């Protein structure tokens, strides 16, 4: 299997405190890998390190065999931050057209991406006037423009209604079916079952790295939330 993201012994220090402690794992193409853990456990920092915007203190992060942040990777990674990074004072379409020009992708990608995130009816509206969920979908659409081989999504489903959430997870799987690697974080444990693989993070350490069924089997728990609590209790004792 060709490698997607390889992280080995990654350590990150921010503001004098170590927030990620020697993490080692990988994210494979063709899979939706979930990064789950409570808020403040280091999910965003880890994602930023993979995208290459976070300075790392030790260890190694490679994406498609190249060091994270390499210039050649920029066109191949789609990154959606937690707060939607789009221009509030532009319309949905103007945002996409601008980023498409920066990426150098053809205009018809704009229509395709709008369709994927179900925002075609809102294309002419100014982003500021949209709901929070719609805004984060604009941000997602921007990340999809360049047909990225790795898509990194930081809590993309927060504040979305259940129908939309389901639709988005289906989108992530569709991308993975086209051999992209999808790395999605969430603090909602009920989303765990939608992932092909799970990485549970707590206080900057990985406490589990498994498939959802594998994790349930190993812990004997009925759901992922119980499994998580079980693993935390085990780690403490």
């Amino acid at each position, binding site marked *: 299997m060709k490698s997607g993201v390889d992280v080995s012994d990654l350590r990150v220090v*921010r*503001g004098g405190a170590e927030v990620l402690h020697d993490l080692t794992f990988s994210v494979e193409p063709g899979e939706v890998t979930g990064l789950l853990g409570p808020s403040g456990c280091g999910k965003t920092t880890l994602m930023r390190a993979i*995208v*290459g*915007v*976070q*300075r790392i203190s030790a260890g190694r992060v490679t994406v498609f065999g190249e060091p994270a*942040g390499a*210039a050649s990777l*920029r*066109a191949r*990674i789609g*990154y959606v*931050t937690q*707060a*939607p*990074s*789009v*221009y*509030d*004072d*532009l319309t949905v379409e*103007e945002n996409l057209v*601008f*980023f498409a*020009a*920066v*990426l*150098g992708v053809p205009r018809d990608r704009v229509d395709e991406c709008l369709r994927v995130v179900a925002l075609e009816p809102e294309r002419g509206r*100014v982003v500021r006037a949209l709901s929070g969920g719609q805004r984060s979908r604009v941000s997602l659409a*921007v990340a999809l423009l*360049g047909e990225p081989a790795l898509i990194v999504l930081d809590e993309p489903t927060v504040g979305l209604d259940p129908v939309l959430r389901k639709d988005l997870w289906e989108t992530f799987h569709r991308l993975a079916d086209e051999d992209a690697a999808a790395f999605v974080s969430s603090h909602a444990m009920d989303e765990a079952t939608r992932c092909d693989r799970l990485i549970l993070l707590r206080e900057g350490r990985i406490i589990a790295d498994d498939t959802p069924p594998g994790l349930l089997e190993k812990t004997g728990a009925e759901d992922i939330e119980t499994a998580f609590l079980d693993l935390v209790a085990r780690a403490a004792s």
Partner: protein
Amino acid sequence: MSPRVTLAVARRVLIQLRRDRRTLAMLLVLPCLIMALLWWMFQDKPSFGFGVLAPALLALIPFIIMFLVTSVTTLRERTSGTLERLLAMPMGKGDFLLGYALAFGLVAALQSALAVTLSIWALDLDVQGPVWMLLVVAVVDAVLGSALGLFVSAFARTEFQAVQFMPALVIPQILLCGLFVHRDELPPFLHGVSDVLPLSYAVDAMRKVSGDADPAVWGDLGLVAAFALAALVLGALTLRRQSE
């Protein structure tokens, strides 16, 4: 760097401005109002005043306004995450900076064209040199303001802090540029200081154009442009792809 990306940035900035009608109106109308106010002030003192101060003001206005507008807009890009997103894309830092300089340079040209037109034809400002040169100087001043604004935005966390750089960096330059006291008549030390401040040359250039039929402004203008370029390079250094 690529022209495609530079132009995309410039176009996007202009669309944003166009949508913000109030800001756009203020950008275009306020300089005219200020020129008119200055003219009115000296109505009863025709021998001294408007003709001396107006050229300096035509240099100051684009500089100050573009400094403020750029420092706030780029700070917004930094805090909203759009800058980080752009830097994670195949975009050169130069594209970002030049795109901004292009867009604001264009606005400054329009702004100054209005203020100059009003000053010459309605307020009887006597300009000896070619009028287009006044515009060139104004645009270079605006680009200087933009470049400095962009640079200082890196040192501000909030918009409150960003606008505080105006009294810190701009007002001393206004005081020392020769508007209040001729630069030759300043105490030697301050004269020396004014020699290394870009606004001094901007005002000198404006004065030469208005007072001389064949003004030798390229030296002054070149210096202002060099300062602008230096500020842009420093600004580029503050656009970091990675953070702590």
